[in-house]
């Protein structure tokens, strides 16, 4: 089996971002997608701390400590970008102006329920940030997540075991093994990594999977 690396997962999700889309990239893995937009495609990245049009990390010596993204990394602003306050940033999110929110996850259910803000560890400090606003407000929510935990547990669940971020919000899931759509008929596999068949993928997934007739091999360039 040839699962994707984390950077390959980000690459794969980035390929599906359409020209002209307003996109919010969640903290962590999703943020990497910004590095893999196909050349010539214009996409506007929204950051919930009040930036539209975030660009790549600054060059050495050109860092500006007042310009960060939601993950508190130093970024740049592309031509055409703008600054605004938190209320307008979340007006954009809650008001359905963000075309795609690409988020990380702990678990996703077969109904598209998303759990990505807290585990069941009572000793952990909770934190929610903008996750619930993005999950409830973006026009479309896509998730980028490793298919199984380090312990081998599936992250795609019949019912989430962790507290929800929002019910029924996820439309597409990118994992290191597959690309899966959440549909009214359940989870539909659109792409599978080389060396996997549906039976093997099903063993690593809790809810029932259906294979799309036109399914493809999940591939990404070496990186």
């Amino acid at each position, binding site marked *: 089996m040839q699962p994707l690396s984390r950077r390959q997962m980000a690459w794969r999700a980035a390929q599906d971002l359409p020209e002209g889309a307003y996109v919010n990239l969640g903290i962590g893995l999703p943020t990497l997608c910004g590095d893999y937009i196909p050349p010539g495609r214009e996409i506007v990245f929204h950051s919930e701390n009040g930036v539209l049009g975030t660009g790549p990390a600054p060059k050495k010596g050109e860092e500006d400590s007042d310009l960060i993204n939601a993950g508190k990394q130093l970024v740049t602003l592309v031509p055409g970008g703008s600054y605004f306050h938190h209320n307008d940033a979340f007006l954009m999110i*809650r008001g359905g102006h963000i075309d795609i929110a690409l988020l990380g996850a702990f678990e996703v259910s077969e109904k598209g329920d998303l759990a990505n803000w807290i585990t069941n560890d009572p000793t952990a400090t909770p934190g929610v940030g903008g996750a619930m606003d993005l999950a409830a407000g973006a026009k479309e929510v896509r998730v980028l997540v490793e298919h199984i935990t380090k312990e081998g547990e599936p992250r795609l669940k019949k019912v989430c075991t962790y507290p929800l971020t929002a019910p029924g919000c996820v439309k597409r899931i990118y994992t290191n093994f597959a690309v899966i759509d959440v549909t009214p008929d359940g989870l539909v596999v659109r792409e599978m990594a080389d060396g996997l068949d549906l039976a093997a993928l099903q063993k690593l997934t809790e809810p029932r999977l259906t294979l799309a007739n036109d399914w493809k091999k999940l591939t990404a360039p070496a990186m």
Partner: protein
Amino acid sequence: MIDKRVPDLAAAVAGIKNGATVLCGGFGAVGEPIALTEALLDLGIRDLTIVANNAGTGEIGIARLINEGRVRKVICSYPRTTDPRAFEAAYKAGRIELELVPQGTLSERLRAAGAGIGGFYTPTAAGTRLAEGKETRVLDGKTYVLEKPLKGDVALIAAYKSDRWGNLVYRKSARSFNPVMAPAADMTVVQVKMIVDLGSLDPEAIVTPGIFVDRVVMVR
């Protein structure tokens, strides 16, 4: 390449349908998108609901739509603006419906539509005729009226400058309702005096980011 510029007014208003709810920016005739509003006439559409602070000035813009019988209803705060003859004639003849909304409530309802807020409690109009039939509620000892979002099928906006992404800046008090309405409709169309290169508007001073804009047309 993202390019929201369209070549002319016909392209700017293409696709707007009979019965549409049309948000029209401005305050009186200042900041009113007159060219866009009048371009609706050529579409041949009617039964429009116009949302604006006023109900048309003189014989231009909204007033012209009213005079030509295209407007079924006006939602506004103050139809009796400078020279309201078109609205007054239609209203007195019973040819047009009026929903009167306090100016701040109108603005906040538009914001709610743009911001994904399902409803809000305002103290404005509590204890008055304009709250009749609406839910009221005492919160923290004060009486509030529940108001609902007011969403447009289309917003017609007048701005000063734009770039090809649809970022907008305005001039002085011509800002008014325009930035409030831009996020509050399914499609937002802007008439501007000038289109400048991407990156030449100050990112600290952009009032309406392009995310709220679908089409931009230059009208001198």
